[in-house]
């Protein structure tokens, strides 16, 4: 309600806008330009995902851009120390909209087992994060799970909802992934 409609068209009037949004989401999710902000050992696993064995290019996330101005996705891979916090924030601000952030691994997501004064306990203290990938380091399968989750998020065009959606158990999450792959 409250949307402008033409001639009482109802659903038909919004046909082109909704279809265009869907098309835009489809185009965006299959052409992710990524900026890897690699600071620690998780970078090895990031290389494993990008290399032919798991081949992130299958999802359209092929070309890493080494300038944040040309990137859509910021991969924060590894421990981020307090001194790197402003750098990370600046890199995030240099990226153009629309932009997404994937927090790769335990250290970037919540500081991991670094319970000290030099480490930021999770990069979401500095910049907003779209997808958290747990693991120390995560398996390539888990990273691809996270990437597909982000692609879902881009397709739906949803920003962070106020209501936290229900959690999926590990087995169920993998079933969902398989079901979507079959579709």
């Amino acid at each position: 309600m409250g949307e402008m409609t033409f001639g009482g068209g109802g659903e038909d009037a919004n046909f082109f806008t909704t279809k265009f949004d869907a098309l835009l989401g489809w185009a965006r999710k299959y052409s992710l330009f990524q900026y890897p902000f690699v600071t620690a050992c998780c970078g090895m696993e990031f290389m494993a995902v990008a290399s032919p064995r798991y081949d992130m290019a299958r999802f359209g996330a092929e070309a890493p851009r080494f300038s944040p101005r040309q990137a859509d996705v910021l991969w924060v891979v590894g421990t981020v120390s307090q001194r790197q916090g402003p750098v990370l924030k600046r890199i995030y601000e240099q990226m153009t909209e629309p932009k997404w952030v994937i927090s790769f691994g335990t250290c970037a997501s919540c500081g991991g087992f670094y319970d000290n004064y030099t480490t930021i306990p999770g990069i979401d203290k500095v910049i907003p994060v779209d997808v958290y990938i747990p693991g120390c380091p995560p398996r390539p399968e888990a990273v691809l799970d996270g990437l597909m989750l982000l692609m879902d998020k881009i397709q739906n065009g949803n920003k962070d909802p106020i209501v936290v959606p229900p959690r999926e158990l590990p087995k169920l999450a993998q079933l969902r992934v398989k079901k979507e792959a079959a579709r």
Partner: protein
Amino acid sequence: MTIGVKVLKKPPRTLAEQAYLPETVKGLRLTMSRFFKNTFGPDSEKEIATVKYPEETRVYPERFRGVHRLTQRADGSPRCVACLCCSTACPAQCIHIEPGEYAADDPRAGYERYPKVFVIDELRCISCGYCVEACPCDAIRMDTGVHMPASTHRDHFLYDKETLLSLPGADGSLLTANTRPEPGDADHPGIDRDHH
């Protein structure tokens, strides 16, 4: 003393190599033959290293440390006796346990405790397996054989007692292979020092 230097003779180049084009064609022939074999050839002859993850999965090793689970006793209660060994051993401090005492008429009362609250922050977990090693009751295991899935919210990674108890191991069992006598069993040594 002088260091002996071994002079290697540069291998001679043939005319075909110097002409550049024949070698280029050779290389392209190899590339294209692989391309046609992997694209149109029979499945048995394909040489593709890529694991097409969502469609096909690699089997994880038997000792792969995946998501935690809490094993159950035969009656469905957790085997955990809330000794706090795992949360003490955890270097990431991702395990939170609040122990509770059994009621006075319970056969386990005064002998062991149970976890009132048992929460693991799987996002903090570094999969070191120290909790599994520290557990004296084989109550916490990491043999579910699944990796922790990614999520968009940090709340999703807090696994409570009920969730952890509901996760089966890789063999599909909620129990443990290492059973032990329970208080009340015939072969139980007794709950006090006089073996009563």
